[in-house]
């Protein structure tokens, strides 16, 4: 089992992601610099961390989605490599087209940071199976552009195909249909605005995120 985290200029949750992966796997996570051109072939799971890649200039995630490393990531994800993006990572995944939709400015127009209650809407996936009968979790959120948008046809399709994995309980940002986290059709690429990697420690954000990582790691 080998995990990796991609670091872009001004990624800032890369350390949070690495700590979470190391806690769950008991092994070091590999840090991959954005200028590298290839995800090592022995990597089993990649996290795209939160932050402000390339300063969020142009549009959140837009430049990262066009970086050399992400080009290779997209190819490997299309062949089945498990990938999860949190916060800015989710924005990047939508910019690559691996996940549908886009993240707009929060409806309240302000940055919002708080513990956020989420409902697990599909517990039968590689990212959620470890939650068993648990239906609600709390992960921290911290974002300015987290308002999930997609057209109705896309939203209908996502819901019909069970690809909405988490919904907000008390929508903090105006996301369509309270959607917090979604996966691709094949079920190996997942993105969400909340931070499960900041919920793996009783002293910091609680431990509700542990089962997220256990789920995907055990599925590999």
């Amino acid at each position, binding site marked *: 089992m080998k995990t990796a985290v991609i670091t872009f200029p*001004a990624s800032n*949750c890369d350390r949070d992601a690495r700590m979470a992966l190391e806690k769950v796997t008991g092994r070091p996570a590999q840090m991959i610099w954005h200028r590298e051109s290839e995800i090592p072939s022995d990597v089993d799971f990649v996290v795209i961390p939160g932050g402000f890649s390339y300063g969020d200039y142009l549009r959140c995630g837009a430049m990262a989605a066009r970086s050399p490393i992400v080009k290779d990531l997209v190819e490997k994800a299309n062949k089945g490599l498990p990938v999860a993006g949190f916060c800015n990572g989710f924005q990047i995944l939508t910019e690559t087209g691996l996940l549908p939709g886009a993240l707009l400015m929060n409806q309240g127009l302000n940055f919002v940071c708080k513990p956020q209650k989420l409902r697990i809407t599909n517990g039968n996936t590689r990212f959620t199976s470890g939650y068993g009968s648990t239906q609600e979790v709390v992960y921290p959120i911290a974002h300015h552009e987290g308002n999930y948008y997609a057209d109705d046809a896309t939203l209908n399709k996502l819901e019909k195909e069970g690809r909405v994995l988490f919904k907000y309980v008390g929508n903090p940002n105006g996301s369509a249909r309270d959607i917090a986290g979604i996966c691709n059709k094949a079920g190996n690429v997942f993105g969400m605005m909340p931070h499960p990697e900041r919920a793996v420690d009783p002293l910091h954000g609680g431990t509700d995120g542990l089962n997220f990582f256990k789920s995907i790691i055990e599925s590999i």
Partner: protein
Amino acid sequence: MAKAIEITPEIVAEHGLTPEEYQIILDRLGRAPNMNELGIFSVMWSEHCSYKSSRRHLGKFLTKGPRVIQGPGENAGVIDIDDGDAIIFKMESHNHPSYIEPYQGAATGVGGIMRDVFTMGARPIALMNALRFGEPTHSKTKTLVSGVIAGIGGYGNCVGVPTVGGETNFHKGYNGNILVNAMCVGLARADKVFYSAAKGVGNPIFYVGSKTGRDGIHGATMASAEFDDDSEEKRPTVQVGDPFTEKLLIEACMELMATDAIIAIQDMGAAGLTSSSVEMADKGGVGIELNLDDVPQREEGMTAYEMMLSESQERMLMVIQPGKEQLAFDIFHKWELDVAQIGVTTDTGRLVLNHKGDVVCDIPISPLADDAPNYDRPHVPTDKRDEVKAETIALTDLNAALKTMIGSPDLASRRWIWEQYDRHVMADTVDSSQSGGDAAIVRIHGKNKAVAITTDVTPRYCYADPHEGGKQCVAETWRNLTCVGADPIAITDCLNFGNPERPEIMGQFVGCVEGMNEACRALDYPVVSGNVSLYNETNGQAIPPTPAVGGVGLIPDLQHFATLAGAKEGDALILIGETTGWIGSSIYLREVGGSEDGAPPPVDLALEKLNGDYVRQLIRARRVHAAHDCSDGGLLIAATEMAMSSGIGLQIDRPAGNMALSGWYFGEDQARYLLAVDENSVNPILSTADGKGIKASRIGTFKGGRMTSNDGLDLALSDIRAIYEAWFPALMES
């Protein structure tokens, strides 16, 4: 090249220099300075850089202690937190720019204080702030609040350093001058602290970071025609922050600092390239020669004057070990930052600047620092006020009073603010504004210990009695750190006052500093860094004296700490400390009594130490489920905050006695704490307190969902919370 300009008395005055100060320059140089040289003297001798009004008073502060590695005089203070770890911290003001352009002013304030900390080799791990705005109804307040908060969040969130706490007051005294004080706390290895003293001769000087532009150039009043015939005008503007570059700068500096390539390093803050190069040379006793053609420039045709006085953000200056130039270039190129070798150290003791083939400045460095004015400005003490007796202040309806108080501008929830700050990034925030506790708690990465951090000052006390107010602000931060179970170690301060040339303002300054120093000495709690911000006044109306204090303490073992939350159903509420019912200068008197009169509560420093040490001992012994100090709003506000934080109601039993109700519930006597403890712990805690000569009593029980008391208080906690949470959003949405 700029044409030679004759230095007239008007030009001297426009540079903020007095005729006497200019005469010193003439004497030291033996000739008239050119414009570049005049500009450099003027910024180095400005109040901001030279502390000319405050220096002799700051020298009185306790600045040493067993844990102090570096006191005032460097970019930030450094303290030892065991195991080879050091904490580097400082607080700084960005008041004037924030009033003119709140978003960028506040953002660059955060950026600047972070650079002060990572310049010394520390990775920033926490941000705090202390903010003062005008009265809520003032026409500018809402815009300023929303801009400042967005600016602080926008910068810190992007760089990825959690903003974990702070304080915000509203008062009409700040209508024309808001205060934005930002504090940064960083973590370093004690044997890898970097200093600013340049050393050696012929060592390369590197410039790294953003390009230099024409922003923030001093001398805004100077007409361009007098300076340069060229049509390109000086465009002094408020500096614009780029947190993306700051993040890259932090990572690049951390990477270079892990090598042995850096001899000295200094960020370019106020007065930019001038103060950074002069301070490095002066501290190291060397000279510096710069080639300004090599400075990365954002605009064409910049003059030497503009480059030396620009305050463009996100720039650093460093002296590199000869032979390590390529290593430095490689690291900065990896992070895609502008980098250039712009000069060398020399043995001349002079600052020499070359530009376009000319020597545009050649002056000795030592007078810039050594001969800076050091004024003993006249000061008159503030008149003492009479006490206000609580018996004269009615309290008839406790329910109405609590509702008014908890929904008042200075006591209502700050959720609207702190939800805009990323408090969790870096994954080591144990406690933050979220729980409303007395101090934030940030874990030392990968270890079982933490730093506790707080900012505090009570300006209404400082205004009423600068000396007692000065004691109080230091004591309250010490108390805040104690409440989470930390050993208070040291403080940074940000001394915000009006015009020091007015004796009554200077009297406030001297009174506050003396009071603060008295508290520092009594509590073994030295000052290790700080900043002075004077001239905070508009149309002759000065701000209330506001010496903001940032305190840092150590929690050696994360098994033993307390927060505001944590009271359990059935817990007893214990009051430590004596209640005399001191109502003068209290929030109750202001919000309910409609008066800002009265002497502020006296601070008995021996009692502070006695009571605080006992509370810390109880927390360390794990006898305390939750702790809070009694400060703004007094006992009932503190108790209500504990109840709201734990989600459990409280039955308060006021002991029999004839003290006025207003004084008992809302008086602001100092050195007091509230503790939530297990029923079984009550007797041992009270009897030990008795043995130590500490006043302690049981005054209530946590239970149910209502706040009640034997004086008729009876409100649902949820109703109180609704009022508490409603004030700020209502202000911002109004």
